């Protein structure tokens, strides 16, 4: 069963207003659901149940369809992410340069488990990226929008310290 938070919380009025505006801005576009979900996630950070339900009502689309789309695409998340989002690239170019070791070391350092990839203080979350297209700098990790290239496990402490 996939997790989906936000089932019980009521969506704040200002969030509703903002989401309405996003939907309104696509009124001339044919079948814009995915574009709208991108914009809403950019604004809200993630797509919990209550946000999906609100979009369903506003757009007059069954919630099941929206849930189907949200859970199909890797970029949409129904769970909150940490303040600093760490993505280790596990694309092929990075993988052959041992990026898996970086992922394992980060998981160990931040004491994360497969069930919970966010630190208790919500400061960091860890995930893997398919390919950020900076293959020339492999192996690469990305923290928020900063790309770090040619990373070794030994460099991780110094990099993480910048976000403490």
């Amino acid at each position, binding site marked *: 069963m996939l997790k989906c938070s936000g089932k019980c919380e009521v969506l704040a009025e200002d969030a509703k207003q903002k989401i309405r505006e996003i939907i309104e801005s696509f009124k001339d*576009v*044919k*079948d*814009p*659901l*995915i*574009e709208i*979900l*991108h914009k809403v996630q950019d604004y809200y950070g993630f797509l919990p149940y209550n946000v999906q339900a609100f979009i369903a009502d506003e757009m007059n689309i069954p919630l099941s369809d929206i849930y*189907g*789309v949200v859970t*199909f*695409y*890797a*970029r*949409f998340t129904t769970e909150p992410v940490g303040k600093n989002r760490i993505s280790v690239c*596990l*694309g*092929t*170019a990075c*993988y*052959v*340069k*041992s990026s898996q*070791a970086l992922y*394992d*070391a980060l998981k*160990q*350092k931040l004491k994360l488990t497969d069930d919970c990839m966010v630190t208790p203080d919500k400061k960091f979350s860890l995930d893997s*990226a*398919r*390919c*950020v*297209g*900076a*293959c*020339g*700098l*492999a192996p*690469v990790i990305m923290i928020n929008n900063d*790309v770090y*290239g040619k990373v*070794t*496990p*030994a460099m*991780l402490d110094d990099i993480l310290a910048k976000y403490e």
Partner: protein
Amino acid sequence: MEKYTVEDLKNIKAQDEHLLTPDKDKKEYRILVCNGTGCTSSKSPLILKKFEEEIEKRGLTNVQVVKTGCFGLCALGPIVIVYPEGAFYSEFNIDNVERVIDEHIVGGNVCKDLLYGETIDGDNVKPFADTTFYGKQKRVVLRDCGVINPEKISEYILRDGYTALARCITNMKPEEVIDAIKDSGLRGRGGAGFPTFRKWEMVRAAVGDQKYVACNADEGDPGAFMDRSVLEGNPHCIIEAMAIAGYAVGANKGYVYIRAEYPIAVKRLQIAIEQAKEHGLLGDNILGTNFSFDLEIRLGAGAFVCGEETALMNSIAGLRGEPNVKPPFPANKGIFGCPTSLNNVETYANIPQIILNGADWFKSMGTEKSPGTKVFAVTGKINHVGLVEVPMGTTLREIIYDICGGIPNNKKFKAAQTGGPSGGCIPEEYLDLPIDFDTLSSIGCMMGSGGLIVMDETTCMVDMAKFFLEFTVDESCGKCVPCRIGNKRMLEILTKFTQGKATEEDIEKLDELAHFIGDASLCGLGKCAPNPVLSTLKSFRNEYENHIKGICDAKVCKALKKYQINKDVCKGCSSCARSCPVGCISGEIKSPFEIDSTKCIKCGTCFDKCKFGAIEII
């Protein structure tokens, strides 16, 4: 905003063409700063800004500072090129901006110590086009990448931009455009090599009032980034090509489906579309003719299967990106159920030049059945990681050893992987095989989008096959059983190999399953998913057999390796113990240290840290 006519395009070119070729005697300079994704990660936008500020501060006129797309040699970024000399500054440090302006721009002397080593020839500066990396390349698709500012339509026009479109819609019938592409023999660069003209012809002949053209920019293969570079370096050529395709097939609307993971490419394409609309190169009555064409961007959301054409079209319609059974083919029933012609970015990038230079010119490059060039993103264990465009039929040896400078640390070549998770690996015996669509499929590989990942003796082929299968299992949409369940089972068997728990029987099982999945899956993703397994089984069967015996030749598979400290070599400096993320190394300073193998996570940090080579992998 002024709408261009065909005359305007000619006038702009005639008036401003000199901007591209600065004249040293007039103290004219053109400074190109790479702002592709690779160089942007190493802070090249700051270098660009600093150049602009310093040039303005000094009140220098006749100096252009130009933001460009990728130059291709990503391993040596950030890169700055200064014309007229063509001085190629690599691994450029922002602190050197003022020095380059003072010595080179103002003083007229190239800062030789900052140049890419290969461009220095005694006292002279060699044009970078003559270096081994660029010398053997033939840039058609990447012709304008790293040459023009992708955010200025005028620069594209100086390079004959939109003249191919003008020629098509003013002088040619749609059928003639299709014939021109047919004569050129252009085949789709997205992977399978399907003749481009045939798709166009089918859509042209299809019944329907509304038709669409679409561009597949969902470059999902990890390690492939040529489409991204084209969109970042020259987005206008895709707009022009799609308009030409629209004219040829009878469509008035196009969609570009692009990965959300490529923010820079999306932004530049958006800017380019806006500019094209402002100048009447998109929209109603293009260049004053009866032809109207509009373009819209649709973002992907991180699903590899959306590179498959029917899945892509479902995703454009805002649905789950699951593939459909074919037929009906997209040429009859595509986006929103209308006839649709879908081509890949690199395919489109060839179109304007085929129209301008003719089919014979195009056929003069490449092989008989695969004319033209192919862009490869060469990554992995290779000295010059980057984008390389070569004529079809170039051998792997030329690409890897001549152009890309071979494998670092004199390691031995083991295999090259093409076609990403859908492709196969090419072992050493085929290094001299001329690469084109047909030769690759004859050895069980595929061209794919052009990712070329080089692996050396330190890569474990079983682990690699497992890596690709993890990818496809993760990305399988789940619609059909062979792909959803079969690949999962195959992954479990491969995991047994990497843990040293496999038996002889498992090799046969893998082989059998692989064939079933390939035959029975619904779409290309499932059909090609077993390729990495089949090709490694064929060329590196001995590695599978060794894993059964508990040996990983490349010392990659964690369960089969162990780190230990050679007591005779260890100096007791404690550097390994201090860097160990789990604190499993202990000992007294100046006497040999020891690794507690029960706690060791085998991350290899100690191995990298030790200056004396005392850490051994067994």
